[in-house]
């Protein structure tokens, strides 16, 4: 089945639910489960994956080079299984990096696209849109694998500890920390389930299913965007894209998720 007819089915499913909103609202989790079933062989994230594959293989930037020499941790150009082992320490940059910050490094060193171009772009625009597509392509090549983040390097340990401290750090007008909503089982905001990120099952549900295509706004969201929006709703200031803090939070989440399954790109409300 080609992608267009898959998408037509997806759109049909969404509009059916949209036109009977009250029916959907009664059992939204069941409805989302139905969405997922309908979309199982046609997640719109596939469009991003396809675009991402092109972006990976096609020369671009001032240096007019492809990203195929990019080392995501398993050697230059190795995409299979790379996302399942991130974040990790990279000797060349001497820092722990998640997938998105690593892609920024490769785009700058191989293609000559400054990191600031990505950091300063709005989500869904410019170089951030490029990264999102690359992310979709790369995570799809870890689908079904076990999350396997080492955390053995001293820098990885340090980032994990920083992420843990950040997870419990509460401030802002609402006194919220990540822990306020994500440290107990069976909790919800409205009807949205809140995974307990201190457990392996909760953390792997979250870490393993992002990045994802969001049905509610028709956007593909990377993990960095997911974290950014969590902190926005926490009433915190703007999380800096690719900052050590964002990577520390990812390290905490990913290591807690170790052993869980990579399901991304996922499909979300």
């Amino acid at each position, binding site marked *: 089945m080609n992608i267009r007819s898959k998408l037509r089915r997806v759109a049909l499913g969404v509009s059916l639910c949209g036109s009977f909103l009250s029916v959907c609202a009664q059992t939204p989790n069941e409805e989302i489960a139905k969405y997922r079933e309908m979309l199982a062989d046609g997640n719109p994230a596939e469009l991003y994956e396809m675009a991402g594959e092109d972006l990976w293989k096609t020369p671009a930037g001032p240096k007019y080079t492809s990203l195929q020499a990019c080392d995501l941790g398993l050697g230059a150009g190795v995409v299979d299984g790379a996302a399942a082992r991130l974040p990790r320490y990279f000797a060349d940059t001497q820092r722990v990096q998640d997938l998105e910050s690593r892609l920024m490094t490769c785009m700058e060193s191989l293609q000559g696209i400054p990191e600031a171009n990505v950091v300063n772009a709005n989500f869904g625009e410019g170089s951030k849109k490029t990264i999102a597509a690359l992310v979709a392509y790369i995570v799809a090549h870890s689908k079904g694998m076990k999350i396997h983040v080492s955390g053995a390097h001293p820098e990885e340990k340090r980032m994990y500890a920083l992420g843990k401290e950040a997870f*419990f*750090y509460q401030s802002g007008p609402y006194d919220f920390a990540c822990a*306020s909503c994500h440290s107990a089982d069976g909790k919800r905001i*409205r*009807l*949205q389930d809140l995974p307990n990120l201190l457990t392996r099952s909760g953390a792997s549900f979250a870490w393993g299913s992002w990045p994802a295509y969001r049905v509610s706004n028709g956007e593909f969201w990377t993990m960095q965007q997911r974290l950014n929006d969590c902190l*926005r709703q926490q*009433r*915190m*200031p703007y999380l800096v894209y690719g900052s050590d803090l964002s990577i520390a939070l990812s390290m905490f989440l990913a290591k807690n998720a170790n052993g869980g399954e990579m399901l991304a790109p996922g499909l979300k409300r």
Partner: protein
Amino acid sequence: MPEFKKFFRVLLGLGAVIIACQTSPFCQAQPVKTQAPENPPFKEIFQKGFRSQGIASIDRLTQDANQIFCSDPRRAQSAAGMKEARMIEQRNLESIKAPTDGVYLGDWRNGEKIAQSGRGLTWSDVPETPVGGGCYNCHQIDEHEIAYGNLGPSLWHYGKNRGSSKEVLIYTWNRISNAKAYNACSQMPRFAHSQILTEKQIQDLMALLLDPNSAVNQ
């Protein structure tokens, strides 16, 4: 005692260096080298992880004493922490202001609207965005609203079950104004203390919970 003499000479030498350093700008410009550069502490990494955007400036990263206490669950749950928690609760309780016009109950219908809205105070909001209480995010309130969260207890039949004695009015007012007066690390925002809701909005929420005519008490 040769050791003592040696020690004395080192001490004298150190003194000379210190005096020289205090008078010579050259020495001040070249501070004594420490060992390997230390990793930046958590606070620095945390601060660098954010930038101000719209109404959410980086001032929001600065914690008050209550937030510092509750960011360290191990400390909060220790024996000493339990004592500290009681003191924090007492301070919060003492800081709560009773309604200036002495009226506790406003308009329950308006209260329902405030309870429904979870908007306001994010960096994507403007100062004019009406701020909601976000109550349904965490509480069941009117049972006809099925999209409610469960981080807090159900408030269905709140007034029907408790009546509206002076004690209940004051307790409920306090709980909305500053929930940390009763539980130092309650997950609930301090709606009056942190200037999230106005006095009028809190009066309307009070009515939603306690007015016998409110949908909550049918």
